[in-house]
């Protein structure tokens, strides 16, 4: 697959603060790519460097095969949808969308027609002559999207464009955006701090932390197989176990120290040596709470103390503590009517079980 955006060894410093730290990644043509991370992780700065609003302290950025590292925004084949929508308040909707088309050599009539087509794409026909102040938040972002799409960019950059929308509308627009991207076959680079949003739309996700890319994978892969504690935490799997490597054979790691029988877990790394400390996670929805120790074939079971029970509608969250002092979360799906009493009581003992295939070994710390 051909590369659309190539970021090679990019660092951005603001004084002493390193916003982006030696990031190298390649965004493929036609994919929906998300930069995901908490605020201050450098995702927006990276996006702004692709857009030309910031320039790297070190490194090179290419779009297609062109080195654009030092090009100003108005000379780049990319367009941006801003978080604040950034619609020009003194222009009508259609004038906003047609704003940039004159720089592409279109005459007034052609520009208007193209702007109308772009507005149709985001289902905003009939809003042409309104000023932006008379639009709702969702409509404003649609206009901003149409304005960027009308420019036919090679890459569309989106800087948390849905952050200001309410939950329900956001879910709608997410699907709409994803469908639009698919049907246009355009490269989207999307910045968000919302893991669910990233998972809903993205083909691939780069999880960023403190200016670095912690993990870059297909979105379901990032969710199911986090490589670092940070990614696991950020993807909602804060269940950390510590063990010791017993042996490694044919991609299977045998982990001891937690249970009588060794836990078998898949690993892609072959650098593990016996007696290495190893950290692994199990997603909360893949853990079960049992009254008896692991019964069915090969299940892993650890005895824990129940600390809390939190009803969340779809799930009930059990907060438990292992004998090693670590806290774990277990999601139990509420597929039966709610009952005040349960087989388990807060303060009591129980067994936390999981299928060994759900054991996710974190990257070895160097």
């Amino acid at each position, binding site marked *: 697959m051909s590369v659309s955006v190539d970021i090679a060894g990019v660092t951005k410093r603001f004084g002493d603060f390193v916003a982006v730290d030696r990031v190298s990644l390649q965004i493929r043509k036609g994919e929906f790519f998300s930069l995901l991370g908490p605020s201050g992780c450098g995702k927006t700065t990276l996006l702004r460097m692709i857009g030309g609003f910031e320039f790297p302290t070190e490194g090179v950025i290419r779009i297609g095969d062109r080195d654009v590292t030092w090009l100003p925004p108005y000379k780049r084949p990319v367009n941006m949808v801003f978080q604040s929508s950034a619609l020009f308040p003194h222009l009508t909707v259609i004038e906003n969308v047609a704003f940039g088309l004159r720089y592409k050599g279109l005459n007034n009539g052609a520009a208007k027609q193209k702007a109308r087509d772009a507005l149709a794409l985001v289902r905003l026909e009939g809003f042409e002559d309104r000023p932006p102040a008379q639009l709702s938040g*969702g*409509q404003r972002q649609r206009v901003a999207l149409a304005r960027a799409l009308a420019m036919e960019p090679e890459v569309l950059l989106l800087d948390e464009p849905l952050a200001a929308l309410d939950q329900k509308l956001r879910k709608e627009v997410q699907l709409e955006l994803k469908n639009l991207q698919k049907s246009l076959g355009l490269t989207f680079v999307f910045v968000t701090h919302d893991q669910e949003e990233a998972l809903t739309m993205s083909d691939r996700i780069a999880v960023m932390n403190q200016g670095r890319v912690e993990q870059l994978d297909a979105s379901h892969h990032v969710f199911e197989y986090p490589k670092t504690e940070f990614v696991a935490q950020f993807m909602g799997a804060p269940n950390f176990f510590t063990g010791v490597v017993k042996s490694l054979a044919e991609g299977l790691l045998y982990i001891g120290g937690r249970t009588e029988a060794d836990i078998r877990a898949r690993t892609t790394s072959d650098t593990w040596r016996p007696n290495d400390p190893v950290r692994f996670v199990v997603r909360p929805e893949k853990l079960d709470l049992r009254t008896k120790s692991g019964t069915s074939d090969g299940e892993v079971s650890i005895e824990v103390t129940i600390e809390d029970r939190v009803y969340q509608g779809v799930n009930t969250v059990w907060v438990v503590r292992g004998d090693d002092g670590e806290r774990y979360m277990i999601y139990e799906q509420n597929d039966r009517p709610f009952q005040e009493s349960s087989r388990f009581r807060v303060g009591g003992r129980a067994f936390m079980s999981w299928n060994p295939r759900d054991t996710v070994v974190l990257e070895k710390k160097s």
Partner: protein
Amino acid sequence: MLTPEPATRAASAPESVETTPAFVGPRAPAPRGAAPFPWERRLLGIHSALVYLFLYAPIAILIVFSFNAARQTARWEGFTVQWYARLMENTLILKALKNSLIVAGVTTVVATIIGTLAALALARYSFRGKGATQATLFLPIIIPEIVFGAALVTFFGAIQLRLSIWTVILSHIAFSISYVAIVVRARLAGFDRSLEEAAMDLGAGPVQTFFRVTLPVILPGVIAGALLVFTISIDDYVVSSFVAGVGATTLPLQIYSMIKVGVTPEVNAVSSLLLLATVVMIVVSQRLQQEPGKGESRR
């Protein structure tokens, strides 16, 4: 499935909050802005009336007497517009008016450009001496006008510039820049920088971005500053009296010299006209300085 939601939803929400409750008991808190007891409210009314009387009675009398048929006395002898007609024949006043319009016109254009640029620089960039620049920008507004006038006349003497209409213009520009800069800066405080980034993102270079986005967005502030400066310039007396050269008599200077001879109905008439012009411009200026969103959404 994904139809655009109606824009009216957001707009109609706040209105329902401000409705008056149907029943207001004796202990219920009074509506905002009203006194809780009738006599207090009446007292407040009387007080306000007195304040307005004190402020505006002289002006009202001036306007009324500009229509008085009597020449010398303060007695009302009937309505006339002859003093306004006489003004049009008074070459001294017409010359002074012409001078004032030239001074105010040139001052407004030059001060608006410099003041706007100063405001942009102060809002955008951090540079060495920014604090000092800001402080000195306020100075012409703070220091007494008479000191400012005296300083200017000394300065012109020192550089051997002969007093003329140009020294008046230079002086007016000097203090007007501050007013423009302050008004435009207030407008820039709410300016979303991503508007400019969006313009550049869409292919506009820095110059095109300024003229197609930045300037149109801050234009109400710029015009408000210009109108304010025009008003201040056209009725300035103190500074002008120091720096006006021969033949550069402005309208306020002319009015003052006429008053020294005696208050005539012509003075009343020309003052009334000046007042009218200034009030109109201040009102327009205030309107333009209102919240950016407010004025635009109502179309």
